[in-house]
Each structure stands twice: as C-alpha cells, then as structure tokens.
C-alpha cells in the first residue's frame, strides 16, 4: 500500500509504546456489533498505480473530448487555451498541498496570491473589493442575493428572465429555506433584452435585481439603465457575468452601476472539467458593503518587525468563528482555482486580455455571419460578445444530438437549458473562442446545411 509508510515492525513497536495488545484494542469504543470484521464487502482489494490509471483512462476514453470535435458549447462554461505555465504553477507542492492560510507566518505565498487575485478581480469588475473566491458562479449568485437581503432588509428578489437557468434554480432552491420571494421569468426570443419589462417588476419591496451580462442568450443588456431604476427604488443591482473574457471588450459592471458583481471565473485558467471545480467571483462596488460580504477576505497588514504581510481578515463574518450568526454558509473557497485564474490573468495582463477578447469577438462575428447564411438558420442577437443565439428550423436539441455523430458539438440548445419551455425549442446557443478555427466554423455550418436541407 504505497501511500502508507508504516511497516509491520513499526506497528508492533508503536502498539507496545501505547500499551495496546493489538490494533483492535484501539477501536474498543466502537460497539462490537457495528465493527466490520473484515474488509468492506464489494470493493476490490488495493490496486497498483498502473491498474488504476488504466481503469481511469478507459473511462476517460468513453467521453468525446472537446479537442477532438468542432466545439461550440458555452452557456456558462467556456473553452479557452490555458497556458502550460498555469498548470505548472498550480502543481507546485507548496501551493497544491497547502492548507487554508490560517497561519499567516507560513502561508504568505497563498495569502499574497489571494491579495493579488482580489485586486485583479476588483479591477476587472470595476469594483472596490473582491473576495478570495466562492465555489462557483451559481452559488456566488445566491450569496449575492442573500447579501442584498441583509443590506436592504427586504425579501423580494427580481431575477431577469435571461439569467442562466441553473443559477436561477439555485437561487430558488436556497430561497425556499430563507423565505425570500423570487420573481423570475424565462427569456423571450428577442434581439434585445427586455429591460423595460424587467424594470417594471422592481418595486419598493425589492431587495435586488439580478441581471446577467452578457445574458444567457449572449445579448448585452444596458446595465446602467437598470441600475438607475433599481437605485431609484432602493434596490441593489446584482450583475452576473459568466464569461470574464468579455470584460476585456465591454465595460465593467461596476462602471455601469452594479452594486454587487458576481460571476464564474472558469474561463481564465481553470478549464472545462465537466462543470467543476470552478471559481466563483464576488465583488462589491461600494467599500461600505465589505462587512456584509460572504467568503474569505485577504488583507494587508504588517508583522511584528514592521514588514508588509497578508492575513485572512474580517473573519468575524465567518461561520467557523461566528457559528450560527455567520453571514454565509461558505467556508472553503476555490483557492487553487483562484491561483490558476490569477496566474493566467498575470500572463495575459491588460494587453493580452484585450487581445484575447478582440480575437474571441472577431471569430464570433465571423461565425455568426457564416451561420446566418445557412438556409433555415436565423441570428437572433443584435449584440453579443463571443456567444449568440440562432433560431433553427427544427428542434435544436435533437439536431445537436444528431451532429455529435460527426464529432460536431454544435452548441447548447435552449431546450436543454429550459426543458419545460417548448417555445424556446428552436434556439441554439453558439459559443466561439480563440480555440475555434475557421475550419471548425465551416464544419458546423456545413453540418447544419446538410441536416436542415
């Protein structure tokens, strides 16, 4: 058993020091009838590294990896090229196998990185303060809603219909238990987001309005208009971003008046990973809201010799200290994913991020133009960044499934995202990134032409 260093000789010597006749004596407090007499049934005995690796590789090969397909999926998870340096850094044992940095004297590596991460996220979002990360975008979204309730002492939450349906579902699930009232909707298939309709739903009991930017259909809503309306009623605007690369091309939500900005950070550094682990980002525009924020915060201070150093701070908000009075349930963050994000963002820098965003947008425009030429396909969006909706003469979900046989992963059908909504069944979300080639676009267009002919 390669992970266990004790030899039988060691074990005997240790039992002798303890004064126990055998190992079972140490389990004497476990009622005999509950103790398993032998190894747990069903599970095979230990296996060599080679055998386990082979088993896992066989499972892995049953999946169609994105690299082996013409790939156009998005809807909250995007495929970007992650530089090899990112993986090298996160595999450093000192980062990978470190604990939560509660002992700052021997955790400055993680702490300084988190401080830099917070600063990067705050700037990207146009906010004053970001935290040290959340589980993912969807849970960050719920935490923002809960925080808005604490700040405004109101219970009515207005969700945009064009919010990612998983995010909306998480908010609804959690709200059931906190008695928040959730008003949601499904998106209408229009070329522009329905700001007027959304604004009409804000009243003076509304704690917050939750708007995705760009939205689930890829459209770019005018956040400033919504912010103004929300603020007029005393509500907060929560902006949700699922594609941080977009913020290299479009204005930051903070700049447009969002009070809380949350999102998914997976695009930068993390990779697809079948949905997790991902990286929740969370920031507030106004520093006065800091003490209502969920999650860990890393702050600058000095040590006993006056040297600059970093610590986890304001932890009196957190549950391991506050117990039942904590501001949120979150404890673990996504430390290693935050590191990956921060390394990738450092490699990009402002210049690289802007170039990356421009390249994504350029290719997305090319794809939209090409697909719009396919008979039976219509582009919905007036505006988009790297993801847009097309309407297809047919059931988009069935077509997506059919195209997998040609190794084309055509996008995410609205039928998959909104299973109860037959009015959305001909919608297909198509995402395009720098990893998409002109050839991929042509492959998709041709495949659609064929299937719609």
């Amino acid at each position, binding site marked *: 058993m390669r992970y266990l260093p004790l030899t039988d000789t060691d074990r005997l010597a240790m039992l002798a020091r303890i004064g126990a006749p055998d190992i079972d004596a140490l389990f004497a407090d476990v009622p005999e009838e509950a103790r398993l007499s032998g190894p747990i049934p069903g599970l095979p005995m*230990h296996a060599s590294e080679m055998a386990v690796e082979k088993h896992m590789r066989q499972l892995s090969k049953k999946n169609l990896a994105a690299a082996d397909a013409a790939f156009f999926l998005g809807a909250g998870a995007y495929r970007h090229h992650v*530089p090899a340096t990112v993986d090298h850094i996160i595999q*450093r044992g000192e980062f990978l196998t470190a604990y939560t940095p509660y002992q700052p004297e021997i955790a400055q590596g993680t702490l300084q*990185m988190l401080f830099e991460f917070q600063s990067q996220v705050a700037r990207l979002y146009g906010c004053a303060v970001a935290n040290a990360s959340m589980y993912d975008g969807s849970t960050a979204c719920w935490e923002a809603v809960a925080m808005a309730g604490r700040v405004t002492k109101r219970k009515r939450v207005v969700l945009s219909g064009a919010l990612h349906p998983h995010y909306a579902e998480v908010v609804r699930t959690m709200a059931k*238990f906190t008695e928040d009232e959730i008003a949601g909707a499904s998106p209408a298939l229009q070329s522009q987001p329905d700001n007027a309709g959304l604004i009409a739903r804000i009243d003076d009991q509304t704690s917050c309005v939750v708007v995705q930017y760009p939205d689930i259909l890829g459209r770019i809503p005018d956040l400033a208009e919504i912010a103004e309306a929300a603020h007029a009623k005393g509500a907060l605007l929560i902006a949700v971003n699922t594609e941080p690369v977009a913020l290299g091309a479009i204005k930051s939500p903070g700049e447009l008046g969002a009070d809380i900005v949350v999102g998914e950070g997976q695009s930068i550094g993390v990779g697809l990973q079948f949905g997790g682990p991902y990286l929740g980002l969370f920031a507030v525009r106004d520093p006065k809201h800091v003490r209502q924020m969920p999650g860990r915060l890393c702050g600058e201070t000095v040590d006993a010799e006056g040297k600059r150093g970093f610590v986890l701070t*304001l932890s009196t908000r957190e549950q391991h200290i506050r117990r039942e009075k904590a501001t949120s349930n979150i404890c673990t963050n996504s430390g290693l994913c935050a590191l990956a994000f921060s390394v990738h963002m450092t490699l990009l820098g402002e210049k690289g991020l802007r170039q990356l965003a421009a390249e994504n947008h350029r290719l997305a425009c090319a794809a939209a133009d090409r697909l719009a030429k396919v008979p039976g396909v219509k582009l919905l969006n007036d505006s988009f960044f790297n993801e847009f909706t097309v309407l297809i003469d047919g059931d988009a979900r069935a077509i997506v499934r059919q195209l997998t046989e040609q190794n084309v992963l055509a996008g995410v059908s609205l039928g998959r995202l909104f299973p109860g909504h037959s009015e959305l069944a001909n919608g297909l979300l198509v995402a395009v990134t720098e990893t998409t080639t002109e050839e991929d676009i042509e492959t998709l267009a041709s495949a659609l032409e064929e299937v719609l002919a």
Partner: protein
Amino acid sequence: LEEPLLFEIGHSETTGVDLPEPQGGGNRLGGFERTAAIGLPGLSEPETVRHYTRLSRQNYAIDLGLFPLGSCTMKHNPRLNEKVARMPGFADVHPLQPVDTVRGALEVINELAFWLIDLTGMHGVAMSPKAGAHGELCGILCIRAALEARGDAREVILVPESAHGTNPATAAFAGYRVENIPANSDGRVDLEALKARLGPDVAGVMITNPNTCGLFERDMKAISDAVHAAGGFVYCDGANFNAIVGKVRPGDLGVDAMHINLHKTFSTPHGGGGPGSGPVVLSEALAPFGPLPFTARTADGVVHLVEEENAAEFDHTRAFGRMTAFHGQMGMFTRALAYILSHGADGLKQVAEDAVLNANYILRSLEDVLDAPFGHSGPCMHEALFSDKGFAEGLSTLDLAKAMIDEGYHPMTMYFPLVVHGAMLVEPTETESKAALDQFITALRSVAERAKAGDETLKTAPHYAPRRRLDETLAARKPVLAFTEPDDI
C-alpha cells in the same frame, strides 16, 4: 528574499501570451465597448514563473512536512490522482455536452457514488455539494424537505457543544434554531441530556463521530434510536470519517445524512483553501429528497444523468432543488475514485487503523508532558487532544503553536474543541512514518517543556518563518483588501 506584488512589477503593456493584435472585423458589442483602462498588470512568462515560484516557497505544505491539524485531515495527496484528473476525457469535456458524449464522465460520478454508499452503508448520495459546509447544508435541507413532506414543521436542531462551527451555522442558515447539548466528563455526548431534550419540535441532531475530542461516540446507535423514536433525523458531520473508513459504516449506526469531505478522507488536495467537495450520503428516509442533478445506472449498465426534465422517469420528483450549476466537482471525483480504487477494501481499512495508531502513539508519547484531558476516556481515534494545563503564567496555546513553526511544523488545531481550555488537537494522519512522528514528538516535547518552564521567547515565536507574528487587528480595523497605486493614496 521578499517578492514584490504583481502590481509593483507588472505593466499593462507586458504580456506572457502571444495573441494577434486586434484586427478590424465586426463589432457587435452594442455600444458597450470598454474605453477606460482596466489596470491589469502583465508579466512575461519567465517573470510569471519566477513570481509564483518564489511566492510558493513562503508556504508550508504537506509535501514539506507533517501537518498536525486536528479535524482537517491533511494527508498525502497521491500524484497519480493529479495525472488522472488531467486526462482529456475528464478535463476537456463540457458539462452540457449531449449525454451520449460523456458517458465515461457520468460513470465516474456513478462509480464513486456507489463506493461512497458502500463504504458508509447508506442508501443514496447527493454528489453535487461543493465543499463540506455545502454538504452540511444539503443534508439539513434534505431533513427539512423530508419533514415538510410529512407536514411536520419542526424548529430546533440539537448540536453538541463540541461541534464544528459550521454545524450551528448551517442549521441556522436553513432556518432552524440551534440548541446545545452538553458533553459528559468523558468528552462524549451526554445521552441522558439529549434524550431529555428530544421532542416534537426537534428536527434532528448534528453530531460528529468520531467527535472533536478525538473519541468515538460509543452511544451513537442509542442516540440515533432515540432521535428516530422522537421523529427526528440524525446528521453526522463526516469530517472525521478518516478514523473509521473501512472499519464501521455510519449507516449501521443509524445515521440519516453525512457529508464526506473528499479533500480529507479521500485525499483530494487542499490547494491552499479549496476546491473541496462534499457529497452527502443519505438514508432510505432522506434519499428521495436529494438535490438534482445526479446519476443513475439502469439494469443495462448505462449511466444516466437525472435532471429536472427526467426526474419522474427515475422516481425522484421530491428533490428539494439544485445546489449548484452543473454536476459538482468532477475534478475531485476523479481523484477520489482513483484514491479509493488504489487503496481498495484492505487499504482503506488500513488507513483507519494506521490513522488511529499514529494518533494514539502521539497521545501516549506526550501525555507525560502535556495534559491530555480525555486520556482516561480510552484510546483516541485519529486525533489526540491536549490542553494548556500546566503552562507557565502568561504562556498560551497560541505561543506553543507558533513555536512549533520554528521547529519546522505547521501548528496543530488550537482552541478547538471549545470544551477544553487552550485545546490542541493533533491529527497526524496515516501517511506519516514512525520516524516522522518521532521527530514531531521530540519537537513538541521540547516546546511543551519550554512552555511549562516559562520560556518567554515563545511569546514572540515564530522567529524563523518568512514572517513574524502578523498584526491581525490592524488588518481588520483598517482593511486593505486590494492594491491601490501609491499615487492614488
């Protein structure tokens, strides 16, 4: 060597990637083009590697030494698991791909789920929670959903005073009132006090077993029976599952829900604070309420993804909702599955035995110099508890713990559990060798003796770490949470 902040060395014009200069092409941004600078510094690749490599060296980590953190189970992270998680079929698949293109990924989830159920003797498992506390919440929400389904609104969750702080927080978050249950002089739950409190307003108890004093709750089955008889449910905090995996099944003790920290017992790396993963195993009574999505294997061996749209097909219409987008922590699942298969049935049993053996070895090797308040209560499980009794005036557990840094160790868990004064909770885990334990014991003996002798230098420890003690009060009083340019001030 001090490493400057990224913001002090990077430039907005420097980049470590080679991307094309923006070309003409279309602009469909709807008039929301970014105009102002973002303020993101960039570094070239060599500078990036050096910045983070240097930073990393200011960290302590399992790869460098023993991590005696009670209740946190910092054990070795196998390198195979890192390799497996990066296989393209796991790392490079999208969560919303058509299910026929991700059957292997669904099989991983399903296979791991199967072994978690097998190892715990439970009935079902919710795989999607993203961390231990998220798993606790999931378990409590299952309990609440089950009670609501029978129209039985209850208000109180009982929690022993030695509970993890996350337990009462979770219960409160789910809308319950928390009441404490005292411990007896052995360091275990006072069974009679618990029984006396049970009643129709009690939704359930949250209990940690082995408990945070490092002891196995002998009366667990009796506790469960009493709670069930009173119409409540038993939540078990699974953070300490490392001590009993392969030896006892929580299901056999009457547990209804237990989260499993894959990053503890099943050794996915902590990564400086996450990502974690907290699947929740559920009893037959609670399983119908587990959240979406999950996987199911039909008789033909095919693994299905069960979501809102097909829950009825799999007889799972009472799910309490969805805890997160997508399917949970796939990257942790692949690692945990590789870990379980590597150890196997015999290996996991050995894990628990060696973990308990190592802890008892530490307990018995140190109880002559450190007060072990429950040393009389029988063998400990996988962690040994000490108190600050006998320290010289003015010296605290904190001082001792910080002095351990100078000896080359991460401090133990301090001031927890609360039932012991100046508690020190030491969990060596099974991946430490006898030689490593002996070295640790020698170091701790020496520091303990200095604490008893009143060595004042402990108060300013650590002396040999990258930093001396940090001013946490200043950090909280005047929070500086993001970099600001010097000339902005």
